[in-house]
């Protein structure tokens, strides 16, 4: 993720007039995604073939898998009896028609599985990242402005602890204290037992229930969301704080900041309008990466909180060699990174006029 990825022009230089620059930019990213997706499907397909082991053996059990007819029926059912190039081309052809295949593990279309798993993780990730930004960025700025003072040392130690603490341990600790001991939050899952999810609009239960005015379910969903999101945020608060601190330190002693202070501007304005704004592109880059990581790699938190997100789905798929699911998840991961790159590039322009689109 670099500022240079955006279509940028510098002030003062003649700008080439390109029609529909934003659409062109979007088109370029879309083309990049298609190429990336093709590459990823091929790599995922080949790597899965390289892993020794026949998924039929564990799927059918020891007795049935000893029956060649049953094994053949299994492979026929899942299309794995065809030559590898045919399997791959069939996959691509189906993909072109929006069909991601059927999961061998869930016996459901992968698209259905992803439609359940992605919003679950997105709901978690959005809250976690919002909390992480709201806490991490200000603390990072404070640490940088008060460099080498006790508050900086304290924040650095705290952030180091946050980064070093294993997430699964923190998750268990949070459950023990806030669910088991204090009973402030429920113990896992997206809803209380027996509560039916709201009708699907976004797939994010708290949002969907609220949109439908089902406040009991909305509250239940929020109750379940808060604790895992905070655990997920803990690591990222530390990360964002550290990066913000170093980004701010890079600019805080620059001449233009000194000039702003010399002009008599209040320190708050100096920090907000001059220091933070200049540091933000680096911070946004990190936030983009963190968001993509959270969206694709929250497997431990998801597991301990029984949160049926994309991390758990990916983990199960790889353990069971569920090829269609592995491919579906790989495509999703590719899409997330391309999309996050795109959003970050756009944000560069919003933050810094020098990097703005034509």
């Amino acid at each position, binding site marked *: 993720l670099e500022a240079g990825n955006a279509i940028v022009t510098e002030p003062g230089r003649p700008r080439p007039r390109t029609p529909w620059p934003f659409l062109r930019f979007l088109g370029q990213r879309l083309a990049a995604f298609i190429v990336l997706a093709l590459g990823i499907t091929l790599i995922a397909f080949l790597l899965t073939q390289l892993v020794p082991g026949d998924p039929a053996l564990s799927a059918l059990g020891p007795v049935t898998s000893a029956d060649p007819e049953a094994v053949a029926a299994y492979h026929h059912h899942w299309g794995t009896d065809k030559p590898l190039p045919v399997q791959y081309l069939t996959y691509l052809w189906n993909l072109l028609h929006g069909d991601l295949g059927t999961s061998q593990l869930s016996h459901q279309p992968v698209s259905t599985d992803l439609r359940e798993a992605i919003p679950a993780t997105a709901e978690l990730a959005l809250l976690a990242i919002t909390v992480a930004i709201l806490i991490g960025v200000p603390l990072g700025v404070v640490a940088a402005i008060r460099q080498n003072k006790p508050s900086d040392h304290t924040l650095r130690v705290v952030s180091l602890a946050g980064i070093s603490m294993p997430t699964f341990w923190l998750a268990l600790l949070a459950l023990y204290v806030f669910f088991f001991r204090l009973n402030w939050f429920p113990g896992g899952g997206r809803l209380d037992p027996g509560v039916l999810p709201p009708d699907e609009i976004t797939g994010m239960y708290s949002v969907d229930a609220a949109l439908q005015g089902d406040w009991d379910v909305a509250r*239940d969903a*929020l109750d379940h969301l808060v604790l895992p999101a905070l655990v997920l945020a803990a690591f990222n608060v530390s990360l964002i704080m550290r990066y913000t601190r170093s980004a701010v330190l890079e600019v805080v002693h620059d001449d233009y900041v000194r000039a702003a202070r010399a002009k008599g501007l209040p320190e708050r304005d100096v920090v907000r309008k001059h220091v933070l704004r200049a540091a933000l592109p680096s911070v946004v880059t990190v936030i983009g990466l963190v968001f993509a990581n959270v969206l694709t790699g929250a497997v431990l938190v998801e597991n301990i909180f029984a949160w049926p997100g994309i991390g758990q789905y990916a983990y199960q798929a790889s353990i069971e060699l569920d090829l269609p699911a592995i491919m579906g998840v790989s495509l999703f991961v590719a899409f997330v990174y391309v999309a996050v790159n795109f959003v970050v590039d756009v944000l560069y322009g919003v933050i810094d006029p020098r990097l703005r689109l034509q």
Partner: protein
Amino acid sequence: MDRPALTRRRVLPAVVVGVAMLTLVAAAAYASPGAKQQAAADGTLVIDTSFVVQTIDPARMFEPTSQIAVKGMYDTLLTFRGGKTKPLPWLARSWTVSKDAKTFTFNLRRDVRFTDGTPLTSADVLFSFRRIVNLKGSPSFLLAGVKVSAPSPYRVVLRSSQPNPALLRIVPNPSLGIVNSKLVKANGGTDAVGADKKDKAEPYLLSNSAGSGPYVLKSYSNKTQIILEANPSFWGPKPKFQTVVIRNMPAATQLLNVQRGQNEVALDLSAQQATTLRGKSGLRVVTNASANLFNIDINTDPKISEVAANKDIQTAIRYGLDYNAFVKLSGPGAVQAPGMIPTTFLGHLPPSARIKRNLAKAKAAVARSGIEDPKITMTYPSELTINGISFATLAQKTKANLADVGIEVTLVGKPVNAFLETYAAGKHEMSQSYWGPDYPDPNDYLVFTPGGLAANRVNWGATDDPALAALAKRAQRTVKDTQRARLFQQIGRTMNQRAPFYPLFQPAQAIVSSSNLTNAVLGVIWPLDVRAVGSR
């Protein structure tokens, strides 16, 4: 045309509005009446388990979590009660078995109706059983070599090509649950030959139930929860709970949930975890030996390994293993397996028949083998944990035990699928292995006798031990339980002396439930019988 740029002034209001909306949503949700955290309401049974579920189509499923749900929704011809393995009447009010154990005639109840009011008849049994066979799915082996016929609307006949005294203990399996044939056919189901390619009923059965059991499917997710609701028109005793929620939870979270919940059951706690809950008010903790069997297999083919195939080395391993240490490793409630048939089943050996560690005997056998510094490779499924016991830990223990008698073991851990592939091909010199019962009958353990499925994986053919193979064949065909018990014990004693299998232990299993619940016991085939669980 110039496009408006995305500027801070444009984005900021959008962000503010977004955050304000979220805050409003949260505030509205929390301010709403009756929105306090909802514990499981009375009338709801909550079962926490780590999901192992691919489907809840009875004819395709064979996973523990599926069995809990399917057992609640579908009736079987016969059943078991509690942890017992005596077949009891259910849909079949009576039955007869021919002397050669090949023909089984079941007389059905006449008052059973599916949830849509359709009477359950022999045609439904015929359809359900044929569909299982022709789908060629995981449970199809249960009816291998069995032909089904329906001579009258309330009579079903199963004819086995081989004497099959185990069949009475096979039909209670939830996979053999009876579906509403008209309904399933109307939704793409077929029982015809070729059903493995033509049957399209699974998606329907993942969102609807088509059974006659006390519960019906309300919602299904193989990732979060399966919700069952009481069947108001159930033909039998009224279901004890209005709702049953089977919830996907890791064991660590189950440990906390069961202490806070009401009408709650935790199925996956290790014996150690369960023991920590003993004596706590409001909880009922039961630990006992499971019917799962942990064992070690050794290859008898000298082409695979001269060392492994050496009879003296096999003897050395038999007496070099520290069986007591394996039992301790498994936790309170575990027992040493007296033979390859677990203590829960007909034909198991008495405790006095257990193999005991004898280091002197083991070392003498190594010396007798003529192999200097014997080395052997043992393969194990590296990431597999069953009943809270990691195969990697067991493998380390085996290695240390055998080092005591002078056998050097090299450990090779493989992912389960890779392990199974080489294991099934009979390529492992030695394996850290495991067997879970498919049905609670000693016939399920004939796979370990010469020429059996598991024996073939260590290349132990019928010709390698003709006497034992003949005994196994006789046991397979014997009908009377008393005679079968005697024969299987005879087989067990012989195998403890010379089979290439070392039965280690039956691990402890635990079930923890709210103390007001009744009959929350682990079953032998299904983890929990939801229809039996009640509340005081």
